[in-house]
C-alpha cells in the first residue's frame, strides 16, 4: 500500500472516528446529565437517528457531487419545499380522482419531475451563461421560494394519505423506509462517483477544469446533469419526508442547503472542488445528527446545539488545514 492510499484512508476514516468519539462522549456524559433514563446508544434511538438523518442526508449526497464538481447549489431547500407541495397537492387534483391509491406513484413522479426541472433550470443557466453557480443558485433559491409562497400563500399545504404514511413508517430489517432511501441513494451515488465515467469526469473537472476541457470533456452538459441529479435528490428527500408528515409549511426546507453543505464539508469534501467522498458525507450527516440528538440527550437546548455545531465545523476545518499544510510551505496571510 502506498503512502497515498494510507493518507486517503486516514482522511476518510477521520469522520467515523469523530462519530465514535461522539457516541462514547454522549453515552458517558448521558449517565450523569441525561434527563431520561434510557441509554443514549439505545438501539431504537439509533434507528430513529438514521431516519432523521435521511432528509438532509439525501440532499447532502447530491451536494457532494455538485461540490466535487467545484460548484454549489443553494436552491435545494426551496426545491425541497416546492417538490413537497407538488407531491401533496397533486394527490387531491380532480384529474387523478379515479386512481385511488395509484395516485401515489403518480404524485411521486410529478414531485421528482419538479425537482429535475428546477435542477435543470439551474444547470442550464450555469452552463449557458457561465455565471458562477453560487450566484445562479442564490437567485433560484429566492425565486423557487417565491413560487412556494405563490402556491398557497402563508398557508400550509396538507394532505394525509394513510397508505403513504404506513409505507413511510414501515420498518424492513428494523430500518425505516427513509433510512433505506438514504442508504440506497448513498450506495448508488457512491457507485456513480467511483466507478463510472461521469464520476471520474466530475473529479477531473473539479480539480482542474482547463485540463478537463483539454482532455475533451464537455464541461457544460456535465454540470447540467449534476444539477438535474441534485434537483432529483432534493425532490426525493421531500417525497421521503412528506409521505409521512403530510403537511408542508411554506418555510419548510429553509437552511437545508446550509446543513447539507455543513455535512459535506465535515465529511472532508473541498469547497474548491476535485476532492471528496460520498461515504464520508454520509458520515458528516450522521455526525451532525448525533450531535443534535446527543446534546439534546444531555439537556442542551436548540440554540446551544447550533452554537456547538458551528464551533466544531470551524475547528474541524482548521485541523484539516493544519494537517494538509504540514510539510508544505505555510501560507502567510
Amino acid at each position, binding site marked *: 500500500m*502506498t503512502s*497515498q*492510499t494510507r493518507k486517503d484512508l486516514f482522511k476518510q476514516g477521520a469522520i467515523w472516528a469523530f462519530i465514535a468519539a461522539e457516541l462514547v462522549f454522549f453515552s458517558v456524559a448521558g449517565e450523569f446529565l441525561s434527563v431520561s433514563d434510557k441509554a443514549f446508544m439505545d438501539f431504537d434511538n439509533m434507528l430513529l437517528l438514521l431516519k432523521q438523518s435521511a432528509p438532509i442526508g439525501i440532499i447532502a449526497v447530491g451536494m457532494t457531487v455538485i461540490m466535487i464538481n467545484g460548484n454549489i447549489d443553494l436552491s435545494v431547500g426551496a426545491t425541497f419545499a416546492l417538490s413537497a407541495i407538488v407531491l401533496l397537492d397533486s394527490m387531491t387534483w380532480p384529474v387523478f380522482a379515479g386512481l385511488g391509491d395509484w395516485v401515489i406513484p403518480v404524485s411521486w413522479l410529478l414531485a421528482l419531475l419538479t425537482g429535475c426541472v428546477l435542477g435543470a433550470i439551474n444547470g442550464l443557466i450555469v452552463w449557458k451563461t457561465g455565471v458562477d453557480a453560487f450566484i445562479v443558485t442564490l437567485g433560484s433559491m429566492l425565486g423557487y421560494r417565491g413560487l412556494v409562497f405563490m402556491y398557497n400563500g402563508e398557508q400550509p399545504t396538507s394532505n394525509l394519505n394513510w397508505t403513504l404514511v404506513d409505507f413511510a413508517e414501515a420498518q424492513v430489517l428494523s430500518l425505516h423506509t427513509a433510512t433505506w432511501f438514504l442508504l440506497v441513494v448513498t450506495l448508488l451515488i457512491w*457507485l456513480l462517483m467511483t*466507478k*463510472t*465515467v461521469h464520476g*471520474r*469526469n466530475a*473529479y*477531473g473537472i473539479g*480539480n*482542474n477544469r*482547463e*485540463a*478537463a*476541457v*483539454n*482532455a*475533451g*470533456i*464537455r464541461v457544460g452538459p456535465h454540470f447540467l446533469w449534476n444539477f438535474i441529479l441534485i434537483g432529483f435528490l432534493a425532490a426525493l428527500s421531500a417525497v421521503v419526508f412528506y409521505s409521512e408528515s403530510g403537511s408542508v409549511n411554506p418555510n419548510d426546507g429553509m437552511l437545508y442547503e446550509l446543513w447539507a453543505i455543513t455535512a459535506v464539508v465535515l465529511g472532508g469534501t473541498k469547497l474548491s472542488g*476535485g*476532492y471528496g467522498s460520498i461515504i464520508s458525507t454520509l458520515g458528516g450527516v450522521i455526525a451532525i445528527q448525533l450531535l443534535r440528538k446527543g446534546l439534546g440527550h444531555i439537556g442542551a437546548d436548540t440554540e446551544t446545539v447550533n452554537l456547538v455545531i458551528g464551533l466544531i465545523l470551524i475547528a474541524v476545518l482548521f485541523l484539516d488545514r493544519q494537517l494538509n499544510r504540514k510539510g508544505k510551505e505555510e501560507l502567510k496571510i
Partner: protein
Amino acid sequence: MTDPTPVLRLEGIVKTFPGVRALDGVSFSVLPGEVHALMGENGAGKSTLMKVLGGIHTPDEGQIFIDEEPTQMTSPQHAKAKGVVFIHQELSLADELSVAENIFLGELPLKSFGLVDWAKLYADTNAILKTLNVGFDAKTRVGDLSIANQQMVEIGRALTVDPRAVIFDEPTASLTDAEKVVLFDVIADLKARGVGIIYISHRMEEIFKMTDRISVLRDGSYRGTLITAQTDEDEVTQLMIGRALDLSRNVSHHDMGPVALEARGLSCGDLFRDVSFSVRQGEVLGFYGLVGAGRTEIAETLFGLRDPSAGQILLNGEEVRISSPMEAIRLGISLVPEDRKGQGLVLGMNCRDNMTLPQIDDLRTGPLVSEGAEVAIFDQYRDKLDIRTPGWRQTVGNLSGGNQQKIVIGKWLSMRPEVLIVDEPTRGIDVGSKSEIHNLIRDLAAQGYAVIVISSEMPEVLHVSDRIVAMYSGRVMREFTSDEVTEDSLIQAISGIDGDKVA
C-alpha cells in the same frame, strides 16, 4: 571615457539550486545614465540574477554594490527602498483601483486617524504621471487603460522612490510599435536623469537602438560585456550561443510518410496572421520564436481551443473544421500544453486516472469504468515511456516535472493520435529528463507520428526538429530545414530581422 561610479555593481554572484549552478560568478556594472542590455537564452540565468538583485534569492557567494556600497537585498521592498526597482514583464496591477491607488499601493499617504490623504495622493500621482508624459490622470481606473498605459502605471510605481537603477524585463513584449516609442521616450528620460537602466530583451533591433552596452549570460555564467556601438548582431549572437554548444542534431533521417497536417493561410485575429506550414508523418516540425510570437495560439487553434478567423486546416489532405478539443481528439490531434500543471494534468488525481482521462468513455463495461483496462494502459505506457512512480495510485502532483510530462505524453499516445503537438516539452524539467523527453520525441517521429514541437529554447528546437518554422510577432519569418539552419540565422529570424540578410 572617464569612469564614473557605477550605480549598481555585481561581483562574483553565485547561486546554486539543488543540482543546478544557476549563476556562476556573474559580475557586471551599470553606470549612471546608461542603458545596459542583459542578454542570454532562456535558462541562461537572467531571471535568477534579477531575483538575486530583487532580494527574492540570497546569493551563495558574491556581493551587490549600490553606489559602491555593499548591500544585501532582503526583499523586493528592501530593494526598492535602496533605489533598485523592477518593471516586470507581467503586470501586477489591481484593475478595479485607480491609477493613484495602484502607484502608491501599500504606501498610501495618510492623514490623522489613519485616513487616506486623497488630495496628496492624487497630487503626488499626477506629478509622477507628468514626468511620464501620459494622457490619463490619477483617478482613472487601471482596468480601463491599454496594456501600454498599464505598463506606464508600473513604471510610475517605480518612480515613487528616487530610483538609482531600473530594471526592465522584456518591456516591449506586449506593446505595439507606436506604444514602444512612448516607452523608449520614458527610458530616455530616466537615462537623462542619471538613472542606471538594465534592459532585458531578446529583440536585437531594440537592443541596438536603445542600449549603450550589452552584457551576455550563458548557462549561468557571465560571458562578457560589449559596447553596443562597436559590435553587431552576429557577435552578440555568437556570445549568447557559444561555440561549445553541442550541435549534434540527432536528426536521424528515416523515411517520412505523406503530409499529415497542413495549415494554409491560417489567421486568428491579431494573434497570428497568414500562417502556412505542413508536417508529414514521421516528421518533427519545430516552431521557434519569442514568447508572444503566436506559437501557442497556433497550437490552440489546431486543437480547437480557438476559432481561426481565416485560413484552412487540412488533415490527410482533407479540410477539417476543429471546433472543440473533443473534435480535435476525435480527428487524432493531441496537444501536450505549455502549462503542464494548469492545463495538462489534474494534479489531485492519480497517475492512472490522469492518463486515461480522455478515453475512459471507451474503457467501459456497461456503465462502469473497467479499472483493469485502465491499469493495463497505464502499465503499458509506464514501461514504454519509463515513467518512474511508485504505482498508479500515486497522485500526479507528487511526481517530478519530467515524469509529469511523460504522463501527459502517455495520455495522448495511448489514444493513438496522428498528430501530436507538444508545447514547450521540457519547461521546468531538469537537465537529465530533458534529453529523455527529446529522445522520446525523436522516437515518436521514427514510429510514424507527425509531431509539432513548440519551444523557446534553441538547443531544443535544433536538437529535435527536422524542419523549423521561425516566428516573429504572429508571422512566419522563415522556414529552415535541419541541414540549412544555423543558430545565427534562427536567432535573427525570431528577432524580426529579415532572413535574407543572413548568408
